[in-house]
């Protein structure tokens, strides 16, 4: 295993010499290209921990290594220019245009003007910021746009490490979900090493490769992947913090492709009704999917087949919802409970039938793993 990109070693922070430690002997390793979310109740020391990495807060004792180098032995100003930083309220410079805001760090490190212009245009494209926004001032932008400018600014000199302090906390929930999706998409391409602070466990579950759940004093209660934390909380504190609906939250993390899909009852439209009824009986659902040349047409039940000679003559009903290999098990479960067939039908490509998922299949997944 390669060395971690960020390494905190026995880090302590006391704001007053004789006071309680805000961070108490914290050790934490973060691998390259990994998104680690620090999550915990307010006052647990998660933001303090993050701000010690770029020395906005100086540790009282301990060691912090970024890319193998001790940050405490570096010029804090130069250190910060090499680490992306995004805060909740964005902190855009109100007197500078969007383009100038994005160009902040390139200007500080002395890039040529042409290179800066090219980089600004590139980042605007990456973050879906319309070109005409570049000459506007932050006050003219929506919350979602400002957030993306904040991210673009942090990415400007392509730093390997990004620190993000509740970066989606100041936008409304609908915009937040979209920005989170866009950011995850971006991160898949950029593979930055990200330290992300939030108090929202659902956001942590969604964004993180690993979550560090912190108790007061930045004491690590558990440091593991979201899946492991939900399946196997290490303490009562963790269990309480991740809250209700643990099972559902886990289902949201598992993709349909990760579990075995059942074959399900299938008939071709050309076959006689008698044969179709046999198939329905064999599976015991009371209905069967109708598939022609691999394509899903819909489903029929015994009642619909009554009085017809072949399946094609009967009324074939469409499935109200279908899931794909990329869907989460939570979406599959939603599809199950909202459909009259009581299963989720799995398709791929342009309506090609793959199989079905039942409640039994999904709950087996949760219970056994």
């Amino acid at each position, binding site marked *: 295993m390669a060395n971690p990109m960020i390494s905190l070693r026995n880090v302590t922070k006391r704001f007053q010499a004789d006071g309680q430690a805000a961070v108490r002997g914290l050790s934490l390793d973060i691998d390259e290209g990994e998104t680690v979310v620090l999550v915990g109740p307010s006052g647990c020391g998660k933001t303090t921990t993050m701000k010690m990495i770029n020395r906005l807060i100086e540790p009282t004792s301990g060691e912090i290594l970024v890319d193998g180098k001790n940050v405490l032995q570096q010029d804090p100003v130069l250190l910060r220019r090499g680490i992306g930083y995004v*805060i909740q309220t964005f902190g*855009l410079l109100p007197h500078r245009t969007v383009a100038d805001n994005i160009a902040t760090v390139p200007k*500080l490190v002395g890039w040529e003007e042409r290179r800066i212009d090219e980089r600004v245009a590139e980042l605007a494209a990456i973050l879906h910021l319309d070109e005409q926004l570049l000459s506007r001032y932050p006050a003219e932008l929506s919350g979602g746009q400002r957030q993306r400018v904040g991210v673009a600014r942090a990415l400007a000199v392509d730093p390997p490490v990004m620190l993000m302090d509740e970066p989606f906390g100041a936008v409304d929930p609908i915009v937040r979900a979209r920005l989170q999706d866009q950011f995850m998409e971006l991160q898949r391409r950029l593979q930055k090493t990200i330290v992300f602070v939030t108090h929202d466990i659902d956001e942590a579950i969604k964004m993180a490769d690993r979550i560090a759940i912190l108790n007061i004093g930045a004491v690590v209660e558990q440091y593991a992947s979201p899946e492991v934390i939900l399946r196997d909380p290490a303490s009562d504190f963790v269990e309480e913090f991740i809250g209700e609906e643990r099972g559902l939250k886990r289902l949201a993390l598992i993709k349909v492709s990760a579990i075995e899909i059942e074959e399900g009852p299938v008939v071709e439209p050309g076959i006689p009704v008698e044969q179709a009824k046999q198939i329905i009986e064999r599976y015991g659902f009371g209905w069967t999917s109708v598939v022609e040349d691999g394509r899903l047409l819909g489903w029929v039940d015994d009642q619909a087949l009554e009085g017809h000679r072949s399946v094609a003559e009967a009324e074939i009903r469409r499935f109200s919802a279908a899931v794909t290999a990329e869907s989460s098990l939570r979406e599959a479960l939603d599809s199950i409970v909202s459909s009259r067939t009581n299963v989720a039908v799995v398709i791929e490509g342009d309506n090609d039938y793959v199989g079905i998922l039942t409640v039994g299949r999904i709950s087996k997944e949760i219970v056994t793993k």
Partner: protein
Amino acid sequence: MTVALVAEPLFELRWVLDHLGDVGQRLTEHIVLTGLAVGIGLAISFPLAVLAHRHRRLYAPVTWVTGLLYTIPSLALFALLVPITHISTTTAEIGLVSYTLLILIRNIVAGLDGVPADVKEAAQGMGYTDRQILWRVELPLAMPAIVAGIRIATVTTIGLVTVTALIGKGGLGYFILLGLRRFFSTAIILGAGLSVVLAVIADALLLGLQWLLAPWRRAARRRAVA
């Protein structure tokens, strides 16, 4: 003498036209005295305000001293200074500058205080040095408040300059004093009127400057309207 006052019209345009050269000279003097006072006041206030902003415990003593200066009646101050610095521009300026300090320092500090904390934190987090934060973030954002202070200081000083006529300076105050001594209303109206006009013009020019220096505020207003 009362007879003469009644016989004369309130305002004699002819007298003014006959003394145009004088008017020009006194007007120039008035502008120079004001400009010097505000300029020197700014040069003193600026570092004091930045210090008081950085080191909060300096704020109270700085405003206490300048506040004390501000409360001294201008007539008394000039009278006190004449034995020391004699009848001179220096005497006038010491007084005039003293009165600008409180206004300027308070406005500069208020402007710097008004810079949002998250903007400063983000600037620091991106790798601005403290000096860069002051010059590239705090001062540009404080500029509207600072210019607002300069406006008040300028208008106040333009009025105060007339008082320095008593120590042989005074710009347009010369006419006011002349009119008072000779019971000659034309000179009083001329001096007071031009002083007011000068103040109004200076205020408008500085308002324009304030507008020019803060294009981002207009942008914010555009959005508010849209």
